[in-house]
């Protein structure tokens, strides 16, 4: 049992932190970046590609760096610290993770290669209006026609959907099950309507009107399990990203309490405020512990698919709950300034809120865990 990063991982952290801090140390830069589509900085994205971050979890054969969930978590935490709007989580971890899991050799080389080099943005069009964090598709249907496949229906919200070069789309298969398909974002029969998500990142409604698409991996295969696993992988990274954001929101709040006065008294003399800051610290540390552990579970070749899935639910449930608390309290402890778009802390809250609803909130995942609570006596993190 060891929670320390090795030297390579520490170097990765320093490199990612350096790149992201250089870009976003001035919060006004982030605010400007998310003001207009695509909601992130293409130059920073390219530099992330150069640093190998966009291919981090993929095999070298697929054009990646061959790193694992712990390295992904390291980068995610740095993303969270500056709430960088670059779509590392949704494009690289979630969509890339799914392609790596089910794509053919050629598809992996092409899609992951393009993603890793920063040349091609991929997005997963999976969520459907009215559906709640399920791993199946119903609103978009796939039909075989003329020896190929056509997709019809609506996906929404699709993170970075309007900007993506390549879409990975889940769709109900004619004989049941949920298949995965890929097509270009500007293909015929694809209509995209993009907008701003709460944290300034972008999402979209995408309408498919008989759009021609290529099966990802083996045609006709039910990929619901792979979709669920990819989301669980994203949850572990998201938990670490949330921890990074919470950590800085807490530091910002502590700094504010330390430097400001009210009624002629430094805010840090108001014990009712400092005790709440202490409770935030507790929440962040507990979330951090589960997030680190879940990354280790994902990285350990000896764990089962079910263990990895449960670990993801655990880590994300804790991060979701902590993120809500930290997001709400960080604003309240600041007062009015925390409500403004100009000051950073409210945007951290907005980002934590966005993550929460992207991947299912704490209540959703605790419900998942509750279903199996009778199957074990104690929970032992050491196995």
């Amino acid at each position, binding site marked *: 049992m060891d929670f320390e990063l090795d030297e390579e991982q520490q170097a990765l952290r320093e490199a990612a932190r350096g790149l992201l801090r250089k870009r976003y140390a001035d919060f006004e830069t982030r605010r400007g970046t998310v003001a207009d589509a695509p909601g992130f900085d293409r130059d920073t994205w390219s530099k992330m590609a150069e640093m190998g971050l966009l291919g981090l979890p993929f095999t070298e054969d697929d054009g990646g760096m061959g790193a694992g969930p712990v390295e992904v978590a390291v980068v995610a935490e740095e993303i969270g610290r500056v709430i960088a709007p670059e779509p590392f989580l949704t494009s690289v971890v979630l969509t890339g993770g799914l392609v790596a899991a089910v794509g053919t050799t050629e598809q992996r080389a092409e899609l992951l290669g393009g993603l890793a080099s920063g040349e091609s943005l991929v997005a997963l069009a999976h969520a459907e209006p009215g559906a709640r964090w399920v791993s199946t598709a119903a609103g978009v249907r796939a039909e075989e026609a003329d020896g190929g496949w056509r997709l019809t229906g609506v996906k929404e919200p699709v993170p970075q959907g309007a900007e993506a070069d390549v879409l990975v789309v889940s769709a109900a298969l004619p004989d049941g099950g949920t298949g995965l398909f890929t097509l270009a974002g500007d293909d015929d029969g694809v209509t995209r*309507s993009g907008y701003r*998500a*709460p944290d300034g990142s972008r999402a979209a409604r995408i309408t498919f009107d008989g759009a021609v698409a290529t099966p990802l991996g083996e045609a006709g295969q039910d990929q619901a399990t792979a979709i669920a696993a990819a989301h669980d992988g994203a949850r572990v990274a998201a938990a670490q990203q949330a921890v990074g954001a919470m950590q800085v929101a807490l530091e910002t709040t502590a700094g504010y309490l330390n430097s400001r006065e009210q009624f002629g008294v430094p805010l840090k003399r108001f014990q009712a*405020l400092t005790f709440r800051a202490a409770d935030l610290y507790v929440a962040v540390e507990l979330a951090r512990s589960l997030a680190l552990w879940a990354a280790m579970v994902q990285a350990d070749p000896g764990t089962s698919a079910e263990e990895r899935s449960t670990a993801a639910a655990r880590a994300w449930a804790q991060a979701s709950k902590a993120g809500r608390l930290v997001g709400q309290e960080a604003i309240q402890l600041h*007062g009015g300034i925390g*409500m403004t778009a100009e000051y950073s802390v*409210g945007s951290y809250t907005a980002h934590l809120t966005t993550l929460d*609803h*992207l991947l299912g909130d704490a*209540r959703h995942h605790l419900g998942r865990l509750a279903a199996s609570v009778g199957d074990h006596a104690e929970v032992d993190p050491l196995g």
Partner: protein
Amino acid sequence: MRLQLSEEDEAFRAELRTFFTTEVDEGVRATVRDRGELTKEQIVETHRTLNAAGLAVPHWPVEWGGKDWSPLRRHLWHEEMQRACVPPPLAFNASMIGPVIATFGSQEQKERFLPPTANVDIFWSQGFSEPGAGSDLASLRTAAVRDGDDWIVNGQKTWTTLGQWGDWIFTLVRTNPDVKKQAGISMLLIDMRSPGVEVRPIELIDGGHEVNEVWFTDVRVPGENLVGDVDSGWTQAKFLLGNERVGVAPVGATKRVLAQAKEWAAATRSGDGTLLDDPHVAVRIAELENELMALELTALRVVANSADGKPHPASSVLKLRGTELQQAVSELVVDVAGPGALAFGTGDADSDLPVWARRSTPTYLNLRKASIYGGSNEVQRQIIAGTILGL
């Protein structure tokens, strides 16, 4: 003790309910129902509809349009408005500066200002808060210096809600820097078209523009625009803020949103049924309903016992708990929206997600202010601990 309303109060309530649901513009009410943003015109027109029926300023002196209602009737009026999705009369006019002028103003000021204030022929803004002062209002630094009969005002106000639409602004200014901070403050009414007044928007985290900074640079204000005596502004401010706290628990509106949340949950698929069938969602709603009912009954206890003019000690509970529940219900709505809560700034973009889901996150983020503005919940706890518990 008696559970029921008297027959007269029951009839009063029914009459209001009819008025609000038939005489107020349906488009305005639909916007409120969908949690949309009202335009200036919608706010003004609704206010005028109410004023024409004598329902905009019932708590003012009868001479200036008031109705001399019992506290219970004022409560019913307020609740029924919220229930019917009618935006309440513009608070800056009806609840804030109007009563101040009626109480502290000269006869000239009353005649000049009260009728256009009642009818929003003047759209008032509030100029109290300043940057860096937070809840410590009395530490304000905007200064007014005499120049003959006039005052020259310099300084900066902030968190001026809807200041972009304001015609006039009522301000607290420092007229004497040499005395205890509360003792050197005066209240000035300032025409916002005066040279030297500049309104700058503040973007909030919900992406909206509802508050502003207001800058004063050598703004000349006639002496006749001072309300009450020089250096007596803190008295007017306390009076105004005391009024602000009455009816400050938005119980009616929160109840309405909670009822809507049930409809939305019932229309959302989850597992084999709907989200309303999910026992965790149902219990969460049941608990919120119970908390809201306890708060509403507490509000009724407060009005029932404030007939003699003394505020009931429990009134400080209303702002604190009212905003907590308002926020809790807004959080519930985001959770009901689920992934749909990501559709935040759809604006004119096409979306298949319902409007309420798209408005859920902006509303949730916007309502973080409810426990900060108008006397933060920390200030309310301080009042309860100090005034009621003697701590």
